[in-house]
Each structure stands twice: as C-alpha cells, then as structure tokens.
C-alpha cells in the first residue's frame, strides 16, 4: 500500500504530468483558443516547466477529433517541411481528390531553431488560408530569428508563461489533494521556496515529502520531514539508504578503520543530496565534481548548497515583483466547458480497469504528427 493509497488516493496526486493537472492550468486557455478561432497567430514563450506543454495539450484537446491540428517539433530529426505536414493531415480521400484542408491549426514546438526562411513559409501558408492559426512555442521570443513580416503578426500575441508564484503553488496543491490537512500553508511555502519556482520540482518535492511523512504514520507534514527529505537527501526515504551503505565491508576489509564507518556510511548520502539539490536549484550550472568526486562530502559543501538554496529563494522573490504578468490567471472550471473532461473521464475508466471492473477506455485518434 503506497502512501497515497493510505490517504485515499487512487494514484499519485502529485504527478508531474500536465494531463493530470491541466484542469488547473494557471493560464487563461480560453483566451488563447478564442485567438486561434479568430485566426490569430500566437507565440508562447517560457522557461522549462512553466507549463508550455500544458497549454499546448489543452489547445490540442480543444480541437481534437476535428482533424485540424498539426503538431511539429523542431527538435525532431525530420526536416521541417510544411507542405508534407499539411498533406500528412489530409485523409486518403482528400489526397486522392487533391482537395486540401483549409483552416488547419499548426502547433510548432521548440521553435528556437526555426529559421527566418521557414518562418516565411509558415506565413505564406497562413496568408493563403491553409493555416487558420499557428502556435509557436519556444523558450524565448527575443532570441529567435523570426521573419520580419511574421513578427508583425506575432508581436501583440507573445504570451509568456511565468513560473508559479507562492499562492498559485499552494492553490496547485490544494487542487490536487483537496482540503486534507497534510500540508500546512507554511510548509508548502517552504517547499516552494526550495523548488526554484519550477512546478515539476515543487510537485516532486511534495510527493517525496508526503510519502516520507505518511510512511512514518504522520498525517501532517512537519518541518522535520522537509528537512529529512530535502536537506539531507532529496531522494528521501530511509530505505534506499541501505543500498548505499556498506557497513559490512568495513569489518572484513578494513578492520582497523572501524571508526571511520559512520563517516563512510553518510558520505554517499550527502553526495546525492548535494548533487540533487544542485540539480534542482542551480539547474544550469554543470557540476562535474559532484559526480566524479569520490563521496565524502564535507560539511562546508552541504552548507554551500543550503546557501545557494537561500540565494535562489531571494532571487525568486525579487523576480516575482519585477516580472509583470502578461497573462491573467483564470481557472478552468470542470464540467462541460472543460476541454479535458473527456480525458479525465477516460482516465477514470482506466483506473477502474486496473481493478478489473471497468471497460477498456476508448481513444479518439486525432491528427498528431510524429
């Protein structure tokens, strides 16, 4: 029985999959969908983990089944060929008869490698009416080489996905676990501060900490649980330590050094902690030492990591004030208007199936290019 079963959840409530929490997208997707329907092009920019995929997914689901959506990622190996993409979305009959779809919606992911020339092509298809709308997704609008004329179409529709702020983060967790008193606001704020404003990291930490607490028969997460999971070892859980420890070895191989034992036992633990906290907090910084170095992390190193954690906390607070929000928060309401209702329903099915009661869920095929 997993910790979330104990709390009465069927599946992990802190899943990092956008599908699992898209009902709580912190962005007004309706607004975007309206823009698409109004034949406007949109550019979505934002850092990793700020919800770009979630927005894309929501848009795709909104138009699914209508054979209108074309998806292409510039990360893919196949060369960008807009004619092929548009053709690929056409049915056999349309191919035979030479009829072409019109009013398609093109989703372009990872466009930071898109060239101005390719942008020009896209614009041509848009102007000819084959494309009703194009959604560009990239890390940064500024850094891109965009065809000048295309810029005119895009400049008023650049949407920046921003990192969660504290309140949204708390709201995110509330939307996942309801009102159960597992996390206090104060604890959540603390975890959020430690997660570099990255929702994925935040959810991961929440999962690990909740698991740690519940496995210790606590129904409330305490500061010490956060400490145990994030400070000493983000991977958490007492048990996994065992496979890193090697107390037996000492006895046989280095009988003399028995005093060193505790040190050795803790060393790999700290090592992991250091590495992982770094991954979480200073993502961009490569840290070869952390892996190459033989274990035995010193206390100083640990402190350094904590310092970094604090620094990034301060930074993020500053960021919050500086960064104007271009986008209004609007919660999607569950129900008929929710484009994701369909998926959630089928997910519920899937769960039943696991219990051996439900039916096989049905999936609609939608034009999704791979």
């Amino acid at each position, binding site marked *: 029985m997993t910790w979330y079963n104990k709390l009465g959840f069927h599946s*992990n409530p802190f899943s990092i999959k956008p599908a*699992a929490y898209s009902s709580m997208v912190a962005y007004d997707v309706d607004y975007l969908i309206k823009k698409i329907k109004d034949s406007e092009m949109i550019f979505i920019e934002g850092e990793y983990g700020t919800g770009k995929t979630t927005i894309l997914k929501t848009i795709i689901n909104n138009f699914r089944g209508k054979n209108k959506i074309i998806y292409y990622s510039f990360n893919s190996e196949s060369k960008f060929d807009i004619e092929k993409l548009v053709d690929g979305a056409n049915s056999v009959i349309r191919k035979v008869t030479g009829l072409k779809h019109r009013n398609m919606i093109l989703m372009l992911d990872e466009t930071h490698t898109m060239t101005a020339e390719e942008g020009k092509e896209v614009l041509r298809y848009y102007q000819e009416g084959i494309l009703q709308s194009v959604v560009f997704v990239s890390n940064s609008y500024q850094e891109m080489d965009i065809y000048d004329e295309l810029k005119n179409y895009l400049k008023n529709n650049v949407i920046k996905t921003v990192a969660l702020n504290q309140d949204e983060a708390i709201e995110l967790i509330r939307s996942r676990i309801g009102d159960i008193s597992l996390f206090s606001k104060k604890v959540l704020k603390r975890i959020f501060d430690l997660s570099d404003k990255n929702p994925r*990291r935040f959810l991961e930490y929440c999962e690990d900490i909740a698991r740690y607490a519940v496995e210790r028969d606590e129904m409330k997460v305490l500061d010490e649980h956060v400490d145990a999971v994030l400070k000493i070892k983000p*991977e958490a859980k007492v048990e996994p330590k065992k*496979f890193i420890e*090697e107390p037996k070895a000492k006895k046989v*191989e280095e009988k003399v050094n028995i005093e060193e034992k505790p040190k050795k036992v803790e060393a790999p633990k700290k090592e992991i902690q250091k590495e992982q906290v770094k991954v979480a907090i200073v*993502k961009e910084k490569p840290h070869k030492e952390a892996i190459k170095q033989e274990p035995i992390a010193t206390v100083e190193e640990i402190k350094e990591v904590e310092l970094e954690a604090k620094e990034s906390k301060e930074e993020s607070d500053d960021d919050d004030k500086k960064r104007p929000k271009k986008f209004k928060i609007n919660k999607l309401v569950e129900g008929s208007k929710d484009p994701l209702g369909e998926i959630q329903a089928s997910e519920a099915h899937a769960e039943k199936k696991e219990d051996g009661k439900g039916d096989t869920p049905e999936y609609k095929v939608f034009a999704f290019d791979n």
Partner: protein
Amino acid sequence: MDWFEKLGFEDNPFSSDAKANHTALVKMDPMIEEIIYRISSGSMLFIESGEGTGKTTLLMIAAKKFGGSRNVVYLDCDILDKKLNITHVLQDKYGMMGRILNKKPKDMIVLMDNVTELSKLNTERLKYYFDQGYIKSIVFTGTSYRSAKFSESLRDRIGNRVIKGPKINSDDAVEIIRKRIGDSELFNDKLISKIFKMSGSSVKLLLENCEKVSRSAAKKNRKRVQLADFKVLMSDKNDMV
C-alpha cells in the same frame, strides 16, 4: 561432460543471464521497492549503476511485476540501431492495424536499458507521450546519468528521480557467489574476494572470472579452485594488453 557438471552443478552457476537469476541479487531489495513505487506513481526515473550490478535484472523484475497486459515495453538500447521509433514500439501493442489507425496506448511502462543517448526525435516523442499519459512511467538505466546525452527538458522531468545502484563490496561479492554455488568447496571466501578485486569490483567481470577459474579447475579434474587457476585470468590480462 560440461565443466560445471564435473564440479557438481547442473547449470553454469556463474551465468550472467539477467532473466535467469534475479533471486541471486544482493542488496537490491530497497532499490526494487523504490523502482516499483516510482513506476506505479507515474514518473520518469534513471537508474544509475555500474556495469554488471544488476540493472537489467531490476528491469526484468519490474517487467514481471507490471507485465501481463502487454503494457510493459523493454528496450535494450545497447543493441538497438538508431532507427528506434518509440511511436512504433508503443503501437506494436495493437499490431499492424494500430499503426495504420495511429492508435496510441494508455499508461504504458517503458523500460529503456543502457541508455547513453536519445535522439531528439525520440526524446520529443517520449516527452510528449509521457506528458499526455500514453506512457505512465519511463525507467532509464545507464552507468552515468550525468554523461547521458539527455535534453534539458527530459532532465527536468526526471528531476531528482535518479536512483543509484548499490556499491558492491567484497563481502557482497562473496554473498553473490555463495548464493550461486551454495556451500560448494569450489572457492573459499578469500578466493572470491581476490577474484572480485581482480575484476575491478565489477560483478559482471566477477562472474566471468569465476567461470574461467572454475573451468580451469575442472579441466585439471579438481573440485577446488587453486591459485594456480588464476593464471587463466593473468594470461587474459596480457592478451588484452
């Protein structure tokens, strides 16, 4: 008569076939538990562990645990050519028709063994299928997470879910061999430790070397391995040089 029969075994006790001997795992229980939990709670994780420490075996256990409904895909990336297309792999569940209809499965568990790099295309596919829920969990294994050629966005999804394998020490090595040969007099513990050291602390090499010295002993019709048999290992080393 095979060498192992001469020594009183029915099979090669040092086989490193991952499917055959997961009962002989040492120090893996907490890891197995962790992996099972991560898979069932839906995540991307990376198992980082040296060669021959049982990564494949772990995946086999996971496959067994979650298998049954054709929901588990195991891919050994070491032996796959570059043409791997995750989409097709996932669609195989539905056979040819699935491919034609572009049918996509739900909640698949993908086990990718020995991943050193992922093409951009497959990275995108994996990310997409994972995010959309077609894939429930992905387990990667490799000897080093740092040096794996993964995109930043993939790493972001893996986050802190990097599980490090156990460090096998010579005590564990003795246990591993004892589990396989029982109380047989073939080696004493000291010899096992010695072979382990000569194998550079790799379990895979340990097994291979144990087999070599045992063969040598069997050849000479002895039931015990002696230091003289270690010549086989030495000459091996020379060959390599």
